[in-house]
């Protein structure tokens, strides 16, 4: 593949300042079971190339799934035409500094290859998951699914870049809906496809799978007749599988430099953060330490280089509550003059790179889970996201969870259903009062972060300890 792409780049006849090609081959296999039968067994091959040209200070692109040399050469010419036609209207005049030369290789680690679990065996495991989820006749629906990805990326450029990356991913899910007359409750394994990681089939089935299956089934049943989450302002404790969403929506997105620069205003929105806030703003409590880290082994959005060739590096975004750095790749860094990270990423070969999250993690504190709960006289503990909504400046949010427990006099007591909470981002993070230690830290991922025009879904990872927030408005469902 390198020779094909390099030949196209070196023989390109357009008078461009820079030419680059990023080819992606993605082999995905998915198995989904519902109740007692398969809902789908699919395999999917995606293969194509994104050709990018810098001319007249403007990038133009042309993406094609026809990988013949003449087709790629035509894509180079088309990308050049795009750049030149737009050059007089450029938002920013870029230079090759936005695409510095880089070479290297990244291959995610795994112990059991993606061909070691035959489809027939995977179907049987997932059928068994559904069977064991049905802990009662009141279980109305059970689902289990697993999918694997083998993603290879080749990146070459006219200034000598040559990068190969290969990621093996395994994404799994199971869950159930319990129903009793008009009452229904859903419970899942930490949220839809939250168990998404880099690795092979050593990740599934894990040693604790059957215990988790049993627990999910029983908790769905318990939720049916649990009390509604009360409407009040209290101490809110969030498990890592909800912190994932909290970090994503109220830290990750607002810190994206392209949002702050206005690129996203017509779609995903802007940000309440201003460029001048970096380096000075107290984003939240001093307990808050947030890193951008695409180097965590096994986390879903780890890589060696972003999609324009910037080497991956761990960086603090927020340290001791203070905002230090934005989520912006080289283009946004040039435009904003704000320090950024290696996060120019594209969902596949058919989309251009834009500023994305990768792994955004909240660093652990020093309290055990028991110590945290023991310190709370009254509060609500919530697990697992089921609803998310936030405004276009990433300010006012309302999130809902699958499962909650009341905290009374330092102890977890009754189960509560339909737990929701709402707040405003700066107030919320300033109310962070306890951060769990490493023993409470868990890592999840999601393949469904949506952004960009044209739209792109991308994978992100989020690790977090259990966290407690004071004076948060919580509420339940309809009575």
């Amino acid at each position, binding site marked *: 593949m390198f020779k094909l792409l390099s030949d196209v780049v070196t023989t390109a006849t357009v008078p461009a300042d820079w030419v680059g090609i990023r080819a992606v081959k993605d082999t995905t296999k998915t198995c989904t079971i519902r109740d007692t*039968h398969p809902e789908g067994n699919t395999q999917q091959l995606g293969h194509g190339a994104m050709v990018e040209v810098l001319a007249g200070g403007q990038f133009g692109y042309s993406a094609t799934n026809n990988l013949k040399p003449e087709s790629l050469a035509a894509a180079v010419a088309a990308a050049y035409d795009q750049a030149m*036609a737009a050059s007089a209207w450029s938002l920013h005049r870029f230079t090759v500094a936005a695409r510095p030369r880089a070479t290297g290789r990244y291959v995610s680690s795994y112990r059991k290859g993606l061909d070691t679990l035959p489809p027939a065996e995977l179907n049987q495991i997932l059928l068994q998951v559904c069977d064991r989820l049905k802990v009662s006749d009141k279980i109305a629906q059970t689902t289990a699914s697993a999918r694997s990805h083998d993603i290879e990326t080749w990146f070459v450029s006219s200034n000598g870049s040559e990068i190969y990356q290969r990621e093996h991913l395994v994404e799994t899910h199971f869950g159930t*809906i319990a129903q009793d007359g008009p009452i229904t409750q859903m419970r899942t394994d930490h949220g839809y496809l939250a168990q998404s990681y880099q690795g092979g089939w050593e990740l599934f089935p894990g040693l604790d799978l059957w215990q988790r299956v049993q627990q999910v089934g029983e908790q769905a049943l318990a939720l049916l007749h649990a009390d509604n989450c009360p409407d009040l302002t209290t101490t809110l404790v969030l498990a890592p599988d909800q912190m994932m969403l909290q970090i994503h929506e109220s830290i990750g997105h607002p810190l994206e430099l392209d949002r702050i620069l*206005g690129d996203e205003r017509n779609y995903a929105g802007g940000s309440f953060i201003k460029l001048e806030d970096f380096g000075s703003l107290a984003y939240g409590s001093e307990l808050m330490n947030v890193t951008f880290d695409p180097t965590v082994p096994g986390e879903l959005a780890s890589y060696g280089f972003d999609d324009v060739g910037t080497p991956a590096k761990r960086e603090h975004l927020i340290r001791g509550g203070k905002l230090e750095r934005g989520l912006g790749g080289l283009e946004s860094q040039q435009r904003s003059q704000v320090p950024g990270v290696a996060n120019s990423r594209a969902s596949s070969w058919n989309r251009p790179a834009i500023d994305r999250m990768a792994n955004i993690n909240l660093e652990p504190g020093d309290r055990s889970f028991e110590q945290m709960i023991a310190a709370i006289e009254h509060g609500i503990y919530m697990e697992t996201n089921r609803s998310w909504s936030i405004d276009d400046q990433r300010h006012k949010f309302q999130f809902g969870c699958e499962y909650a427990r009341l905290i009374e006099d330092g102890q977890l007591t009754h189960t509560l259903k339909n737990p929701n909470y709402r707040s405003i981002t700066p107030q919320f993070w300033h109310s962070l009062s306890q951060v769990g230690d490493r023993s409470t830290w868990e890592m999840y991922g999601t393949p469904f972060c949506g952004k960009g025009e044209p739209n792109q879904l991308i994978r992100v990872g989020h690790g977090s300890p259990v966290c407690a927030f004071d004076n948060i408005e919580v509420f339940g469902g309809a009575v």
Partner: protein
Amino acid sequence: MTVAKADNVLNPIEKGAAVTRQELVFGQLAEALMDRCKDGFTLTLSGEDSQFTRFNRARIRQTGTVSDGSLTLSVMQAERTAAGTVPFVGEFETDWPRLEATLTDLQTLVPQLPVDPFVVLPTGSATSRTVNRGATLGVDAIAALLTPVQTLDFTGIYASGLIFRGYADSAGQRHWFESTSHSLDFSLFDAQNRAVKGTVAGSEWHQGKFLDKITQAKHQLTLMARPAKTIDRGQYRTYLAPTAVAELLAMFSWGGVGEADLQQGNSAFNLLRQGKRQLSDKFTLQENFQQANMPRFNSYGEVAPPQLPIIQRGQLVNSLVSSRSAKEYQTPSNYASRGEYLRAPEILPGSLAADQVLSGLERGLYLSNLHYLNWSDHPNGRVTGMTRYACFWVEKGEIVAPIENLRFDESLYHCFGDGLIDLTNFQETIPDIDTYDRRSLGDSCVPGILVDNFTYTL
């Protein structure tokens, strides 16, 4: 301004538009499969040749083209099935070897899989061909769109080009749909970061319509320049313009009116079906393919009826039933898609005239757009989301001030039930301009609605 016509037309056929290279090759692949595969199969194609140009501050941020396509082959043997997807380039000599290799893989895989008692085997004899040709702007002309907006903070995306869908199966059913279209989705911002939204879509670019949209948006933006009013949380009479109603309507396709969702306890409308909650007799929702820029055939090759009432005068008269659900729940199929989502939704109009909207509202909120909707209490149909863009406080039937964005949390049983005062006597066609994976097809046809005691929470 230059206009680029589709350049891949090969040869004309009788009684129809000329056949594109993509249609020709898809037909060749289907015939080759018929010869090679003696199992039941379906073959679907989805692809596009698209232009995407992204704007920010009346300048170009990113611009490019995407030529993409994928073939999905499903093979059925003895109540077992599996599917494989491979790229579609539009050249038989490239596409057939990959498709044939996938066929071989699937024929090996399928016998190893568990029985799927609800496999839908191709049985029909339907064929269809729909070709909606248009003309799109060349990239130089797209750049020139910026000339009339140079004094404005204009942001958004222009997307255009050919979209194609194909279907073939072992029973001999064949369908083809293609559409050349464009959409320009934009926002105008003022210095206070307040914004208004506009969309231009169709098959032929009309510069006059674009300029009219810009003029309308500029006028709305002048209204936004008034000092914003902060609204306390509470309940207010609210007018939701058609674009806002279309956002609420999308929730009907997400754990809404699909039969599988209703059967599996995953629907907001189980309470409606059980008679425990009601909707207003003013509210009628139907599938209406007669004007939709969307194929009527589904992934089983079945052709949906031109119209299908879903909620008629507040009563759930039909769910969306795919042939798979029909087998599982022993109920007749209405040829819904496999995912049982609305493909050509229409909410029928009411009696509220455009010039009566503000007087009907009298005192309350005028919402042009909603943002980021999600279920906050799914079984009870409760939805949360944000107001966005041109939203105003109205007093004595007149717009008084723009509002700071508000969070709402309200049940569809209220919006389209006991809180529904009236629907407008006009509808707007809201195009689906999503571009996840590929450019979307379709649109929704909706009126505005006037709702009493709409709940705002933050």
